[in-house]
Each structure stands twice: as C-alpha cells, then as structure tokens.
C-alpha cells in the first residue's frame, strides 16, 4: 500500500521509494529509507499536503509526491 493510504495516526514501514532522483534524495536525507518507520500525523486542507513523522522529525510533503512512498502498515493499532 502507499503512504497516502494510511489514515491519520497510522504508521507504516517504508518498503520502496519510487521517485525521480531529486525527490528521492530529499527523502533519503531525512532518513526515509527502506525499513524506516513513518507515521501520518495529519493531512492538510483538501489532502493537498501531508504531514508525516520520521523518528523525531516532522515533515511536510505534497500529496502527489508522498504517493512515491510505498509502505506496509504496522498492525496492532486502533
């Protein structure tokens, strides 16, 4: 599933990043790599932006760009 399929508050493990090199590099430099845990904190107005949390870092992404991140949902929550 994709990161943007997660609901607010849900977490996932990054499986794959399918993006052009610039976007990918940006995500990598924030520690968004295969195997890292990522949480959807909130969606912006009209879901055009998305706020995620990686470790202790809060990040804002564009919805379209966040679609590049494939995740596997961490079960056992809500």
């Amino acid at each position: 599933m994709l990161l943007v399929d997660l609901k607010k508050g849900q977490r996932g493990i990054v499986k794959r990043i399918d993006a052009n090199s610039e976007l990918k590099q940006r995500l990598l430099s924030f520690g968004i790599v295969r195997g890292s845990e990522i949480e959807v904190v909130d969606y912006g107005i009209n879901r055009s932006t998305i706020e995620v949390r990686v470790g202790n870092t809060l990040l804002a992404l564009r919805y379209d760009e966040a679609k590049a991140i494939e995740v596997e949902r961490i079960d056992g929550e809500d």
Partner: protein
Amino acid sequence: MERIKVVLAGQPNVGKSMLINALSGTTKGKVGNFSGVTVEKLEVCFTHHCHLIELIDLPGTYSLDAYSKEEMVAKEYLLNEEYDLILNVVDSTNLQRNLLLTLELLELNKKMIVALNFADEAKRDGVEIDIKQLQKLLGVRVVLISAKENRGIKELLDAIHYVAEHKREPNRITYSDVFEEEILKLEKFLNEKGFRYKDWSNREVAIALLFENEKVYKDLHDNPIMIELYPLIRDSLEHIYTHYETKDIKEIKASEHAAIARGIVLEVVKGAKEPKSLTLTQKIDSILLHKYLGIPIFLFFMWALFQLTFKFGNIPMEYIKEAIDGFSNIVGGYISNSEIRSLVVDGIIGGVGAVLLFLPNIIILYLGIALLETTGYMSRVAFLLDGFFHKFGLHGKSFIPLVTGFGCSVPAYMAARVLKSKTDRLITLFIIGFMSCGARLPIYVLFIGAFFPQEIAGNMLFLIYIFGAIVALVMAKFLRVFIFKSEDEPFVMEMPKYRLPSLRLLWHSVYSNAKEYLKKAGTFILAAAVLVWFASNYPKDKELDQTYLQKIETTKSEKRKKELEVELKRAQLENSYLGQIGKATAPFFAPLGFDWKLSVALISGLGAKEIVVSTLGVLYSVEESKSDLKEALRKNLTLPVAMSFIVFVIFYLPCFAASSMFTKEAGGVKYFIYLFLFTTAVAWIMSFLIFNLVKLFV
C-alpha cells in the same frame, strides 16, 4: 599568530547562527557576507598562546548529496576548499536525523568536532546523551553546548584548539556486516600493495571506493593500481547490490547511514523516548494546523503583522517626515543658488527622505518575519497554503511577500528571500508589483471619487485590489509554464519544533536588514532620485520663467497669482525631459485612450506612485488635493479612459525604489529589463482590453 580555519556545518535549525553569536560574543568578531557563505573572523586567546580562529559558516544542509543552491554551496565548500577542521553542529534533541549528516561529514576524512547544541532543551526533555560513548563510536571529539545559554563555549574553544594541534584519528564507524566484509577485502588488498592516499587510512579509501566517491575515483584514475582494483570493486558492489535489492548506491549509502544512526542513538541516548518538546509541538500544531481553524488563525497573524507594520510604522513616520522637512529647510537656508538648492532639497533630500520614511515599517516587518521564521511557524504556513499556491506555480511561502506588497513593494521584494528555490523566488518577485501598494491608493481614490458614486466607491476600491491579485496569480502560472520552466521543486520540508527565539538573534536579523535598506537608500536610490529630479526640472526655459514671474509680480489678486504659479509649473513640466518623454510616448499610450498629460503623469509615477496625483494636478492646472482636480478629470476624461488608466496603474512598472530593490533581489539588471517588458506588456494589454470593453457599454 597561528590561524585555525573552522568550517561550521550542520542541518538547518540546529542553532548555528546562535552558536556564532555566542562565540563572537566572547571575543571581538568581524562579520563579512558573500554568496551564501558567512565568514566570520574572530580572535581567540588561550591561556598559553593566541590563535586566530576563522569561522566559516555554511548554509544549513540535510545532506551532502543535495540539490538546492544553498546546499550546493555547503557541499562545494566542504569538498574543495582548504580548512583545518569541521565543526559539526548537531541538535541534541534530534540526534538520530542529525547524525545522518555527521556520518557523511566523517566520510570526508577531515579533522572534526561535534558540538551537541540545545543541551539545555535536551535536559528539559529528559533526554540524556552518553557523551563518552558517542565520542567512542564516532571517533571524534564531542562537546555538549548550549549556545542560547552560553554554556560549553569555553570547552568548545578548547576542543578546537586541541584538535587543530593534534593528528587526525582515522574513521572508526562500523558499517553493516555486508559492507564491512567488502571494506575488509579492499582494505586488505590496498595494504598488500602498500598503497597510500593523502593522509587517509586504506580503510577510508575502501569506503570511499565502495560509495563511489567521485573525487577519489578522479584522483586515482591514472594510478596503475586501478587496473587490479576495478574487478574487486565490481565484485564487492555486486554483493552489496544483491543484498540491498537496488543498484542505487546513494540509496544504499542512505540506508547504511540510517541504520548506523539508529544504532548509535540506541546506545548513547538514555531517558525519554518521546521528547517533551516534540509532544508540545504536536499539541500546538493540532491547533495551528487545524482543518478549519488553521487558515483563519494564520490570516489573523498576517492581519496583525500588517496592522503593526503600517499603523504603528506610521507613528514614527510623522516624526521622520518632520525631521526631514526641518533638515531640508535648514540645508536649503544655507544654499543661495536656487538650482543647487532645488537639487539638494527636492532631489536628494526629498528622494532619499521618501525612502527613509519607510524605515519604521521595514523594521517592524522584519521583526515579524524573523519571528515567523525563528519560531518555526513559517513552515506551517507553507504547509497550509501550498496546496492552493502550488496550483498557480507558487510556493506556500510566497504568501508572505505577496501580502507585504499591499503595503509597499520595497520590503515585499526583500521578504521574498524566505523562498529558497530561485525559480519560486523569481516568479514571486515578478508578480509582487501587481499587489497594489499603499502609494497607489491616492490615485485610485482620486479616480474612483471622480467617476463613481460615493455608495460604490469602497467596493470599487476592493475590486481594484482583487483584480490585481487575481491577475497576479494567473501571471504566476503563466511564468511557471512558459518562462521559468524548471522542474517543480519537490516540497519536502521539515516542520521544525517550536522554539522561542533568542533576543540576540532577532536583533541581529532586524539590524542587518535595516542596515542593508539604509545602504540602499544612500546609494542606488540616491542616484535614482537625482535622475528623476533632473528629468522633471530640465531643460529650463528661462524666457518662460521670466514672462511668468513678471506676470505674477504685476498681478494683485492672490488667487490669480496662485493660478499663474500652477500654470508656470505646467509649462515647465511640459518642457522638461519628462514632459518630452511623455509626448514622445503618447502614440504608445494612444490605443489606451491616454493623452500626453496622462502619459506624463504615468511616467512621473516611476519616481514614486504618489507623484502621479501631483503631476495630474499640475497638468490640469489645479491645485492638488482639492476637489477641483476631480472636477477637471471628469470634464476632460471619459469613463473608459479613466478605467483604462486605473488598470494601467495597477500593473505597470513599480517605482524607482522598488525597481532597484527588485533588481538587487532578482540578481541583475537583466531581470529589471524583463520586469519592465513584462509589467508594461501586462499593463498595456489589460488596459487595452478594459478600455475597449467599457467603451462597448458606455
């Protein structure tokens, strides 16, 4: 005296500027600024002997494989320049992510010190870091500091001193098993060959080769050892690729670093897993980024900033105006030659004074922007607005300069600096002028008053502003699609923790901006003011002067005297270079319905938009600021012409002060020419459309 050149590197929001402030606060420092790299030289004396410590402050960067201009500056400097050691500033409250950059820096194999900043905050957060263990794992000196509270600064200077004097310790980072296996293979081979590269250990060379370090490959390119190395490296990489299921070495490197950073944090960070400050930040965010409340709250903040800037800023404005008037009276009294007096009083003092008037607004505005930025709220605004603005090819943060533009374009152009990407900044700079500034208000008020009934005047005014803003958005889209075609910059933005800024830092930011503004007023704007003065006063027709002066002297009636004076002014203006330009350009303006008088008024507005009204007053031979001017306009102009004129005023070239600020912020005269062509084209086409459209209905 020995000189130690220290490069400050760190991710954004780690308090580097604060640290520099703290360091230079302990000593005498000098600041110099060039191309994104701040160089600060300061002299530091230790107990036994003195050192000159030169601090090079690089722009904050998340990684060394970066794209943005500022990050490139940091990367280029670290890779290619000569320096003694890297001072890596790290946010203790977010160690894991900060270590990603630290690990990259370590692979540069330079002398290095890690300064753990925000020690105070980490303590409050209940986070405890085992410094000794961290030092052992990283293999470099680690110093705990709090730049804000001025703690650990002495220890840091001692460490700089110590590290500069001693030999560098080799890189000790342990990579994953897969990687270590390949590193050992290459290292063993290099050792067997008795290979040496710079002061690097062969382990360091092996790591660089595996991570495809371009510089190392370039340096070793002609070395015969490469013939034997290539197959080894290829084999090693094949193993690594299979394990990672990707051939993207940058991604593999990032994964390695992420895993190492995670491991280090597990080992050295004790105490709270969830920092209190982060929890607090998320609580604040739940209000400020609220689905329904977020935007209204933001609009309120903007409104407040706007009010402060243009209401409170106007209070000292009165005094400054009085001071300038007083000053020019005094100066004028000393100059007997009337032409020189006119140059000094009207041209220089008047022109520069008009710019100085905005200094209070600039200071308040910059204080506001510095607060928005240093507290971390700015990124939230971008998050809230990016969706809407992105549709028009703008960035969420473009909002700030655009709103500022409703007050005055000069600070607005400066405010565009909040945009990091050059394309975003340029597009925003080009459309700021379409946000009608305060100086254009008198023109609108005059024309609306003359041509529309009182009841709808307010609505008309609102419509003018909205119309400008809508065209601005459409034009932004146009520029993005046709002119600045660069790839959209990805929107991956950190939302830093909310922090209270230090007063010192705020002061520094406001002070340096105000200084720059004043410098501008003293140089470029001074020249521009003199130019405008000259164009509207010369060439002088002596005979004309004489005739009128005689007439004025012989007239008894006061009223007639005033009329004659205004008539003289009109005749002079018509004769001046400005008047001649106006007449010469009249054919250009003819399709818009403007006669030469309106043309001259528009051109005089290039000096400052307020001048348009006073020029009209002179040209229609009435005293300005009297209702007669409205009457005169109503008599001389038709509704389509008036509306066409208003539209032209919305869109045409900003005043001299603003244009010169634009030129500086955009980065060259070339851009000014583009701005001139762009605004003129938009203004002309819009006016033409409105003129002909309104004609159909009237």
